[in-house]
């Protein structure tokens, strides 16, 4: 595993950190966006991922894919009493609301392309777009004008579109029957809190 801290130049480390951070957004995006599939399940059970996840209290799922699919469906799709991971559902109790249009406008502004058909304000899409913005922002030291703007845009996006999920994450944590989704909610909550702190409390 590549060491995070240790030898090497700061700029390389920071670049590495940026990519790591973006990848965490991507991984969370993937887990929120759709069910776990066989390659992902296998990867989560093997090194290096299994150790990295265990440090965040997420053990590899011991359930079958079908059990995981059923859990994902009951939690995030329904058809009844689901905790739809979409911002406008939680804020306006409707699909495709104002927040969806807003995310779409951010995507247009930043050249982001949705990876698969979805509603724009799905948490998976929002996390993925944020991953894109983190990469475009680059490291603080190496930032050019576009990077500065990207940082500004990323913060604006975070403020509007990653500030809402706490009730969803709490509901998921309480309702999930399988450890994977309880942990996913907890990890997402921790990560977003960490990012919020980094963006708005300890950095410019």
């Amino acid at each position: 595993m590549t060491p995070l801290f240790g030898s090497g130049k700061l700029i390389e480390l920071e670049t590495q950190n940026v990519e790591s951070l973006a990848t965490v957004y991507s991984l969370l995006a993937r887990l929120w966006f759709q069910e776990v599939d066989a390659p992902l399940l296998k990867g989560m059970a093997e090194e290096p991922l299994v150790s990295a996840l265990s440090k965040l209290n997420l053990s590899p799922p011991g359930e079958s894919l079908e059990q995981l699919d059923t859990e994902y469906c009951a939690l995030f799709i329904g058809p009844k009493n689901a905790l739809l991971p979409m911002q406008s559902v939680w804020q306006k109790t409707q699909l495709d609301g104002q927040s969806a249009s807003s995310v779409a406008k951010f995507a247009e502004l930043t050249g982001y392309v949705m990876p698969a058909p979805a509603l724009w304000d799905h948490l998976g899409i929002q996390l993925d777009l944020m991953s894109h913005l983190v990469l475009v922002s680059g490291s603080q030291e190496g930032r050019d004008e576009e990077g500065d703007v990207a940082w500004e845009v990323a913060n604006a996006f975070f403020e509007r579109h990653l500030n809402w999920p706490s009730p969803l994450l709490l509901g998921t944590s309480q309702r999930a029957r399988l450890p994977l989704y309880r942990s996913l909610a907890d990890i997402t909550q921790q990560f977003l809190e960490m990012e919020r702190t980094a963006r708005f409390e300890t950095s410019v």
Partner: protein
Amino acid sequence: MSQDHNPQSRLSQRRHFLNLGLATITSGVLVNRNDQAEAGQTPAAPDDQSGAGVRPVQDSPRRGIDIEKWRKLKAEPYEFGAFGEMPGVCNLPGPLAKRNWPDRAKYEGAVKVPGMCQLCSTVCGMIGYVKDGRLLKVEGNPNDPNSRGYLCARGQASLNHLYHPERLLYPLKRVGERGEGKWKRISWDEALDEIAEKLKAVRDSGHPEEFAFHQGRQRSKDALKRFLDAFGTKTQLSHRSLCSGNRRAANLTGLWESDWDLNDVEHSKYILNFGSNVFEAHQGHVPFASRVQRGRFENGAKLVTFDVRMSNTAGGSDEWHSPFPGTDGAIALAMCNVIISRDLHDETFIKRWTNVSVDELRQHLKSYTPDWAERVSGVAADDIVRIATEFAAAAPAATTICNRGSSAHLNGFYNDRAIGMLNALVGSVGKKGGWCWSPWGGLDPVVKTPPMPPGAKTQSVLEDPPEYPLANVWRRMRVGEIVYLYLLQDRAKLQAYMTYNLDSPMTWPEESMTQQILSDEKKIQFHVCINSFYNETAHFADIVLPWTTFMERWDLDARASYNLRPYVGLRTPMVEPLGESRDVRDFFPDLARRIGDGMEQWYPEKDVKEYMEKWASAVPENPKTGKQGLERLMDEGVWEQEREPFYEPYNQILSDAEMQGAVTDGEGLISKDGIGIGILVDGSPLRGFKTPSRKFEIRSAFVSKIGRNEDCSDLIAASGMVKTKNRPDSHLPHNIKIEDMPIWIQPRELQDLPADELVMTSFKWNVHNHGRTMNLKWLAEIVHSNPAWLNPETAGRFDLKDGDWIEITSFYSRELEKVSPHLNRTDLPESSGRRVVSSMRVPVVLMEGIHPRVIAMSNSCGHTQYTSVAQARKEPLENSQLAGCDPETYQDADWQRNMWWQDDSGGDHTKWQRNRGNGWNQNRLMPISPDPVTGQQAFHDTVVRIRKID
């Protein structure tokens, strides 16, 4: 999930996350999008409908930010950098919207897109205001010749429908037992592959009829027929017999060419309404109601309503009379008696254009006196005489109207024939302001679908039950309510069952049996449900397909036109379908290709739009815009043919070309090649009516002969209606006596109804349809519950006061036990020698506006699976998976503020508060009760007993 604020812990946490990122990169579990691009895979576009989208995400392609645009956005007036609203993002109507009303900026740049409502059967023209791919508002389309720009409350709630947070967005596959409620998401490819495999097996079994398609309200007739004919099954089941079978059969008996009377109320002077709640419901609701009011307030028409219940129509009428249930026909016959016996009839019309003489009528009607009608109906004989006299005096600008109030009875076929006869006697049939019809039931026949497959030739007792002679003779009305019973009786089986916009456990009689059959995998081996929402039918499916709403799909559509001119309306996607929802027009071609064996040949178009272009190609050019076909419809939403209204079609003179080669028989009937085309009247060759006699058939030899399974080929040929059929040989053992003249009979259970029994009736409120609107919060807020209506006099007899609870016990029909023994259930309990359907506990409201022998409940209520709003739940159910969790779920400000009606009584009626809860499904009490002649469900004849619950 609390946040640790210790700096060391935070640093450690950050390390863990960065480690996770690196580990994820190293593990390669995420597909790099740039790698996908290199491999030739293109990220799916947001409007990709294939369902085969690229799932894993990592590393969006590094594309530049539009810096100039960002700078503009963050500057004044937007000040986006200060986290104001994202410019150009519109609020949809929703919580607290009134505080910012009117928001003028909201509609800037919005595009108007035409469409057609489908929240009831009336299909009013709509215009949607679309901005940034979102529908902001709908309003009526003033170009629509039928609805003329009006849109009722249901239509206004379309936005609730489209953006409902509990819409189905993905295909689902059952995981647990059927009905257990466990699902997993599958892709469209997986869903269609599995469905195709099952349907192919049905085809290969040699019994294609064992694939049944069961529709609720549907407005894509061509798409369904194309698929089913291409497949080779005729087992297309519908709800028509639960709706309008008797009225249609009665109209067809007299007219043959139309099953739908289009009363020209706008030009009437007198409107005689037998049991239609036109101001609140009715097929043709808004177009018809608005014309009734124009007739009244601009033309001076009088509106007289007979209804057991004081509906909003009855309350808004000039007179309301409350007859005993099912006696509309008796009143109509007595009025006919008055008109004939007092020589108020139109002698010329009867002689020229009916197939009975005045003397025959006098003889037939003599026993149906006003005094007799008063005895059976309770309506005063004097009123009957007066109203009949007024009606005749206003003729020919006089018309009856009727609907389920008169027709949803075991004698409904005869009720409606008697009501129709009134118009013939006063000569208002086909006249301006009178009782009219049109030969086109919906779309202008000018538009032709692309070539259709030949009709399927299969036979199934589910689709054509032999016991009901008039169910499928002129039109395929079918007998929907017997489907589950016949499956229970093993008279048929289904290898595959596809339901579409159907909520049969809610809207069909005998809820418990419907649920029993739907959950039985031996009776229904494979069930695919196509719907926009999870509901009581989807709950028993094996695969659920997410259907688009009517704001996301294509149709050409129209209703029978009250302008008496044909038209073509366009339903078009106002916005892209949400999630992975798809319309049948879109995925039936995919499914057909997967099934193969020639099915695919009926889907040559590359997409739905190409199909629509072909279908609409006959719409002529608008000289003002130069647009024609689909382009014109996209522009205007609708096209109405320029022609005279369809008044007095029987007086049309046959042209020389039409008469070329024609022969006239001794009775003046004109035919060509053995097919009737007209009648000679006073030396003129006229079109006449499209009946065997070429006259309005008060007396129908045809229905009597059909009931006896006799050959009617000569009558069918004489009518010129070559699509009408004799009954098939499979019906031979099932003779039913059908009277040739309008009569009145009373089911035996209603004769001398015991004092402790009541007749149950149902009704619809002005904000709901039967099973599909209670999920819409704007409507549910207005009506969400349905306590039983009782007259105070009745309540007094049972020692009941307003708000008390009763137990209702319902019984099967004694009449049907005798005349329809194939319906009998011996597996059910008896009470006092009668078979019990079910019992249910409900509260009562006391109303003067209800007949003392009647108990009424509105339908639409009592959902158990259909969204939180429909179940009146803003908090999770006890005993649900959330019990004890006290979770924070999403909060709807509208619900929190306005869903005050959640019932927290826990089923304890002593704790129940008035107007709380989501009501009760009345169909739990209703027996399967088909009119023996047509199969129309007799929703309004159910005999019940009630008792007070302490």
